[in-house]
Each structure stands twice: as C-alpha cells, then as structure tokens.
C-alpha cells in the first residue's frame, strides 16, 4: 500500500473543499484533496451552474416564442424550435470550462488532487484505493445528496434533479414533487421549454420556507405560465400515473410522462466510513462550532455536511476560514448574514432577518416595501411584479434584513449582504446615490420609505 503524508487533507472537491484547498495552497500548507467524481462537486456539475444554464436556455426559448405570438415590443420571429441535445452540450461546455478551471487553480496552488473515493480510517488517516494518507488536519466537505422518497425510487420516468439537468428530450408532461426552490426553478424551466408542468406540494403554498407576501408574486407567475399547482396534496405512489391524495382525502391519478422528485437535500454522511470518527451530530448533519471544528480535535466539517443553510457560498466562506485557521490565524465564522437566492421567475432573494424572524428575535422593527411597479427600469424590462423589502431596528435604524422578489433581483443580493455586513442604517442606504435607471433604486427607495419619505411613491 502506497503511503502519503500531508498537513491538510480535504475530502470532497466541491465549492467547500476546493476553496479550502486553494486558500491553504496560498498559505503554503501542504494539501491533498480527494474527489471521487469531478471537481466542483454538486454545485458545478449537477447543481447551481447547470441549473442556471438550463434556466437561461428556457428563458431565451420562452422569450422567442413570446415574440412569435404576441410581442408588445414589435418584434416578430417565426416559431422557434429547440434542439435540447445542443442545449445540454452548451451547458456541459460551461461545466467543463469551470471544472477545468478549478483543476488549474488547484494545480497553480500546488494542491495534490487524488481521484477516488475516500474511506476514513481515523481522524488522521484516510484511505483512497490502495493509498493511505496521513494528515495533521482533516477537512470533511462531502456535501449533500438529494432526499429520495421510498415510494418514488429514481429510475425510468422518475428522475432527480441530476437527470432533469441533462434531458435527452423535453417530456410532454412533467410533475414536480416538492414546491421548494429546486422543484420550482426546474419546473419553471421545463414549462418554458414546452412541457406541461404540475407541482405537487404537501404544504398549503409554494416555497413554504419564505413568507407568503414574498412568495405571492412567484405564485402569480406560475399561474400565468400555466403551471398547475397541487397544494396540500401528498404523493402516494407511482404506477404509470402519479397517485396523490387531495386535501379531502380522495386519491387522484395524475397522468404524466416524467416525475421529478425535488423534496430537499440531506448531508452526505454515508458510504465513506464517517462512523469511524464517531463525531457528535446535529440532526443528520455533523455538529460544528463557530470555527467549523467537529467534536474531534483537528477534524473540521464545512458546507452542506455541516447542515443548514446548505449554500455553496457558505461552504466556500467556511473553507476559506478553515484554511486560515489551520495556517495559525485566529478566525471564526461570523457572518452577519448569508444571502439565499431562488432563481425562479421572478427571482427571490432573502438576506438577514425577515420581519417574522426579527419579531421572533425580540426586535422592534420597521418594515418597508418598495414595489417594482414604481421603478422605471423594471418597466423597461417588461416586469412590474415584485418589490424590495427592508427590515430595520426602530431604535437605531440599523438594517437587519433585506428581501426582494422580481425579475433580476438575484444581483441585488450583493448590495443587501454588503449593507448588512457593514452595519448600514436606513440613513446610509437612503443617502447613497443609486444609479438611474436601475432596479437598485428600489433598494434606496425602500430605505427612504422606511424613514417616511420615499420619493417615487
């Protein structure tokens, strides 16, 4: 058996793992990264990036179709056709470019990448095939997996997000099980690609993790797109048709060609002998402290493996911090807020505390909305739905949360997160000149409205 020694060993080459490795390389720490599939993990290969690529294809196709039928802009085109194989090739090209880029960055920073599945032996030893690696510090970054439903085993017409991101053809009918962000992002994309899409959700509304005011514009848009919603319906099984129970307890048989199961993700703790470490758990995730340290000395867990919020940018920030910690710097993971974005149509952004969360935290807050219906740039984008909402403390006007829903609002997450991290008050945002005409003006106006003097309302 071959034997290797290193200071830092990282299991998992996703956004958490590869960022840890890059930063560790920059700091001169001898680093080995083990990845069983492709670098970039779920995010680059079967998650964030490919889904955004597919959403873009769907949006372009949908727009063209829109112009073909009833364009208010005066554009007329002949009916578009879609070669989904080419779309998938284009998407794969982006993924390839990014994963190759990650490999190049790792090489540049002298990180040794080992392809293979890691098996943990103890807190300082990992085996990959017939290679045994000894390390001083072990970073666990194995990410998460889609939650499977035993009554809907993946296979044939029943697919997970992975299959949905590499379609060979667009099904005529698609039922999405799960009205969370993954189900809706893909459901909307498939609808725009031409499928008849239905969404089955057990709760009484879509995106149940967010408040009703925020999700209403998405709900309205789904209706307008012709996505059928089966709310308060639970799935019973699949037998050629999808059986669901309606709120009255009656069983419905829903005709469909494909069923996409998107009921959430869970930390990937199985299959790599994690049990050998006997770490303290926090539910199904590994328990960590504010330095991402597990219950075992010099063993760290980052990203989805360490639980909610399961977001790539959280994993990256944790990885960067852990590498600095290992280099001897004093660090802790102490963000004021981590933005969450749903790339639905319209998009939805949540950063910091929502009004309900602020209330639950015992804060007396001012909550103020500014609608995109009063924003010039939104009109020129043929979009009037949605709003920007700010939550600020009543006593000192420090902003504790931002939310927005509307076309293109994902890009506002930057401004939101910055204002929270810098400790901005309503007066700071209200007093910053925001370029005209941009969607960002709604950010300034929401702050001004909270202070009682919005200009364009």
């Amino acid at each position, binding site marked *: 058996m071959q034997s290797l020694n290193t200071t830092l060993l990282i299991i998992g080459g996703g956004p958490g793992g590869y960022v840890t490795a890059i930063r560790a390389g920059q700091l001169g720490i001898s680093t080995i990264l083990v990845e069983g599939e492709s670098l970039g993990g779920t995010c680059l290969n079967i998650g964030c990036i490919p889904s955004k690529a597919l959403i873009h294809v769907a949006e372009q196709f949908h727009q063209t179709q829109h112009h073909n039928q009833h364009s208010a802009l005066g554009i007329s085109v002949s009916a578009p056709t879609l070669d989904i194989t080419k779309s998938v090739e284009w998407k794969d090209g982006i993924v390839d470019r990014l994963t190759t880029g990650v490999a190049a960055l790792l090489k540049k920073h002298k990180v040794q990448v080992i392809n293979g599945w890691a098996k943990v032996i103890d807190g300082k030893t990992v085996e990959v095939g017939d290679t045994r690696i000894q390390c001083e510090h072990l970073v666990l970054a194995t990410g998460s997996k889609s939650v499977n439903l035993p009554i809907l085993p993946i296979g044939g017409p029943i697919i997970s997000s992975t299959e949905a991101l590499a379609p060979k053809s667009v099904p005529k009918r698609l039922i999405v099980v799960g009205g969370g962000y993954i189900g809706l992002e893909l459901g909307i994309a498939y609808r725009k690609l031409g499928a008849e899409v239905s969404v089955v959700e057990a709760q009484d509304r879509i995106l149940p993790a967010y408040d009703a005011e925020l999700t209403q514009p998405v709900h309205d848009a789904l209706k307008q797109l012709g996505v059928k919603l089966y709310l308060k319906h639970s799935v019973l099984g699949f037998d050629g048709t999808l059986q669901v129970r309606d709120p009255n307890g009656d069983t419905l048989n829903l005709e469909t060609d494909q069923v996409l199961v998107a009921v959430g993700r869970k930390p990937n703790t199985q299959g790599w002998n994690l049990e050998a470490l006997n770490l303290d758990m926090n539910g199904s995730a590994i328990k960590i402290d504010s330095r991402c340290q597990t219950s075992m000395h010099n063993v760290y867990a980052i990203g989805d493996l360490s639980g909610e919020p399961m977001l790539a940018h959280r994993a990256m920030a944790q990885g960067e911090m852990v590498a600095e910690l290992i280099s001897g710097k004093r660090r802790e993971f102490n963000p004021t807020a981590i933005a969450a974005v749903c790339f639905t149509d319209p998009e939805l952004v949540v950063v910091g505390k929502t009004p309900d969360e602020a209330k639950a935290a015992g804060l007396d807050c001012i909550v103020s909305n500014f609608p995109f219906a009063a924003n010039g740039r939104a009109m020129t984008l043929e979009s009037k739905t949605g709003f920007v909402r700010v939550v600020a403390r009543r006593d000192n006007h420090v902003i504790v949360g931002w939310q927005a829903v509307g076309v293109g609002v994902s890009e506002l997450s930057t401004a939101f997160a910055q204002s929270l991290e810098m400790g901005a008050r*309503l007066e700071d945002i209200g007093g910053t000149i925001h370029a005209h005409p941009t969607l960002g003006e709604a950010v300034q106006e929401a702050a001004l409205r909270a202070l009682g003097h919005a200009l364009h309302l």
Partner: protein
Amino acid sequence: MGTHVIKMPDIGEGIAEVELSQWHVKVGDLVVEDQVLADVMTDKAMVDIPSPVHGKVIALGGQPGEVMAVGSVLISIEVEGAGNLKESDKPAPAAAKETPVAPKVEAVVESKPAAPRTAAVCQGPMVAREANERPLASPAVRKHALDLGIQLRLVRGSGPAGRVLHEDLEAYLAQGQSNASAPVAAAYAQRNDEEQIQVIGMRRKIAQRMQDATQRAAHFSYVEEIDVTAIEELRAHLNEKHGASRGKLTLLPFLVRALVVALRDFPQMNARYDDEAQVITRLGAVHVGVATQSDVGLMVPVVRHAEARSLWDSAAEIARLATAARNGKASRDELSGSTITLTSLGALGGIVSTPVLNLPEVAIVGVNKIVERPMVVKGQVVIRKMMNLSSSFDHRVLDGMDAALFIQAIRGLLEQPATLFVE
C-alpha cells in the same frame, strides 16, 4: 406646598449610626405613601424606610454607603399642604447648595452615555449596545480584531449606531500599549477593563466583623473525622418514616443536638468573652448561630434555645431562618444573640476549613462534606460514610485540650446516634 422631612430613624437598641445602603427613589420622583424610599443597614439587619406621605422628592440626605447619624435628614419631600418643616428650619439658600447630592447624581448619569463623537455624527436615534448584543462592525474590522486578539464587545464603537471602526480598534490598542511589557503578538486577548465595586452595606459589615474577629481572637483550628454511617442511616430511616408528615431532616439538626448534649460537659464552649472587661460569661441557653449564605453575603440567623428543641423543631426553625435570611426578611433579633456557631457549606464543604469565630463567641464548628471512604474496621476494609468537622476556638480562653475533648465528645455522640437521645 410644604416640605416634609424624614429623619434617619432609630431602628436598633441604642444605635447612633446607620448606613444608607440604597436609594429606591431619586430627586424629582413622585412617591406615594408606604412606598419604600431607601434601605438602611444596622449591625446586621437591612431595614426598609417607607414614605409616610405623598409627594415629590426634592432632596436626598446622603449617598449609598454613607454612614449617617440617627436623627439626621434622610430625605425631603414636597407635599400638598404644610409639611413638617417649619420656615425657620429651612436651610439658607447657600446651605442648600452645599448639599450636593442631588446635582451630583444627575452629573454622574449625564456623563455615562458613551463616545462623545456619536452625538455629533449620527442624526438618527442613538442607543447603547446591550450586554449580549453582537457588536456592529464591518467584516474587515471583525477580522482585524481577531488578528489583534481583541474581543470586539470590549471596544467602544464611535461610528453610527455604535459601529466599531478601525480607529476604535487603534484607540483600544493604544490604551493597552502604554504598558511596555505587553506581549507583542499575544496568544490571547489582553484585557484592560476594570470594575470598581464599593464595599458597602452588608459586605462592609462582614468585612468589619471578620477583620475584628481575626485581629482580636487567637484562632486555632482542630479537625477530626467522624464516621457518620450510622447517623446517616438513622436520618434516612426517620425521613422515610416521618418525612411526609414532619418534614425532611438534614444533618444540621443532628449536629445542633450533638452540640447541645456535648455542651453540658463543656460549658466553657458555650460562652461569650468580653475582652475589654476581661469577663467570660457562660450561658445555660444554647443559641446556635447557623451560618447562611444570602445574595448580599453571609448571615448568621440564630436558633434560640436549641437545648429545648426536638430534632424536627430544630429542623423547622433552621429552614425558616435560612429562608428569612436569604430573602432579607430576617429581623435583627433573629440575627443576633448566638452563643456558639455552626457553619456548613453542604456538598461544597470540602475536606477542611478554618472557620472564623463569630465574636464574642469562643467556638465555631465547621462541617465538611460527607464522602464514602474505605476504612479499616476490626481488621477489615469497609466502606464508611466519613465527614470531617473543622472547628475553630479562641486560644485566649480555651486550650487545645478543651477543644480536642469537646470535639471527641461530639464525635462519640454522632457515631453512636442513640446517645444523642438517651438522657
């Protein structure tokens, strides 16, 4: 409108001075009849001073911690009607200025709000940071603070809404670096905060009494271990049998009983020594002081006439007094007049202690914790419940032999519990 003046009342037997512990009102407050105005403190007891009138506080006669003569002006209240202050009694305007208490209090309050810059810079409302609140600071400032080993919550923020700026970190560092020996790259945060706590009220009384006791008495301590297996069995049995109806027994009432029985043969232990008059007074009554920790400090409520009390009677009295002492409701009588003292920290009793005498008493018995230990009994190692008694005596009037014999007598009584009750 008239002025009603309340004078420091005489609250004890012939006490000339009383310490003002705490104000419950401030100048300008409206008070109603029976509202508590202040707490004052005699030798041992804390006493509330209620308002006899409705009105508005116009002057306070002293500051917390000040020792005031009985009969001096405690507080002046403006009332409807005539009041009790005659025109001729009123201090001249100049004299009124000399009573600086009211304005002084206000000045202190005014200087408290932080950072002089904030008021000028921020136009919005300003609030102080709560103790457990996360300090407002940008990511760069947070990281820099970590690098410097500074805990942000210790740094005063001068930015808007109390935001901590890079300049604030520098100011905090500069404040600490006047010390030349300060480590350059400290592994842990250096702290430069100080907290001053005035020794007033109960704490001052305890300080005075303890200092007095250790200066005057010639303390010596004697420690002996007691096998309490039998008495613990008896206690458990009694609690099982009578616990529901008569209440649970702790070990304390048994110790009180052992003292009472042992003292019959050692009257020199149940005594008060007046060292100025050079007289020892031996007492027939056994008034056992039971040292009790309260929020404000150590108190010694007294179980009177322990010689006439049954186990459960003692137990009930100890429990009642302990509760009263902890709630600050013990009266002066209940806190004085002991002839010998018991002190116990229960499970925190440790293995040895060196109790300080409760002067003018001559003996104090300290109780350490009960632990199971392997002991040799008749050539066999057996597990026994053992407890130490750590006792102190006044060597001016008692010798080591007296102490040893007295404690051995107590040991004999506790190890053969029946002898506690056989007359």
